[in-house]
């Protein structure tokens, strides 16, 4: 399984903080995004935001980054700390 987590405005828009996915269907971070967009129109619209960032196992990555079972994949808006 792959653990997928969402933060901040994205978490609120989706009404979801965390979900698990079977690792069989996905090879990359972009594959996960595509799969999540199939859930419904709300998810599709939310993920149409091109400024969203992604991380795998706490490192910022691009969409073509490979994922494997046990990974934690995160999606979130641009950061605004400091």
């Amino acid at each position: 399984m792959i653990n997928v987590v969402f933060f901040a405005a994205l978490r609120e828009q989706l009404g979801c903080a965390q979900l698990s996915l079977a690792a069989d269907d996905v090879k990359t971070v972009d594959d996960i995004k595509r799969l999540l967009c199939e859930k419904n129109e709300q998810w599709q619209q939310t993920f149409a935001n091109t400024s969203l960032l992604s991380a795998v196992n706490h490192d910022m990555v691009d969409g073509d980054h490979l994922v494997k079972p046990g990974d934690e994949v995160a999606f979130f808006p641009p950061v605004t700390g400091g």
Partner: protein
Amino acid sequence: MKKHNNLAEISIQTDDFSLADEVALLEQDNLTDGAVVTFTGRVRNHNNGNAVTALTLEHYPGMTEKSLANIIKQAKERWHIGRVKVIHRIGELSIGDQIVFVGVTSKHRQDAFAANEFIMDYLKVSAPFWKKEKITNAGKISENWLAAKDSDNDKAKRWS
């Protein structure tokens, strides 16, 4: 008084911090560094023309620490610096509250000045924190997630 501990360079906390205590820890048993540069970030009472009444800070536990450790590592590779301390608060904050602290020591001031600014600039664009503001506009209270600023990206790019 706490003892200085090299492993405790990063602290993500809900509690406030004391600037005096943090400076004392950076200086404790440290007679080789002649420069101590500190930055403290606080909650402003306005943003984009709106009156801000409070702020909530969310973070990504685990990734935040990893990201800050990586920024500190890069700073140590670029400049001759001694001790580093980064504190970032999370949770609900009020106007005037301290949010973030960066302290850097070095033998001479140039290294500590540059490294401190570098750490803040990279924290702004790569450490997973998000601010949600409570604002009052024409008597109405609303909550907004802050949008990232292009100017912050430009500041971070100066270092590459």
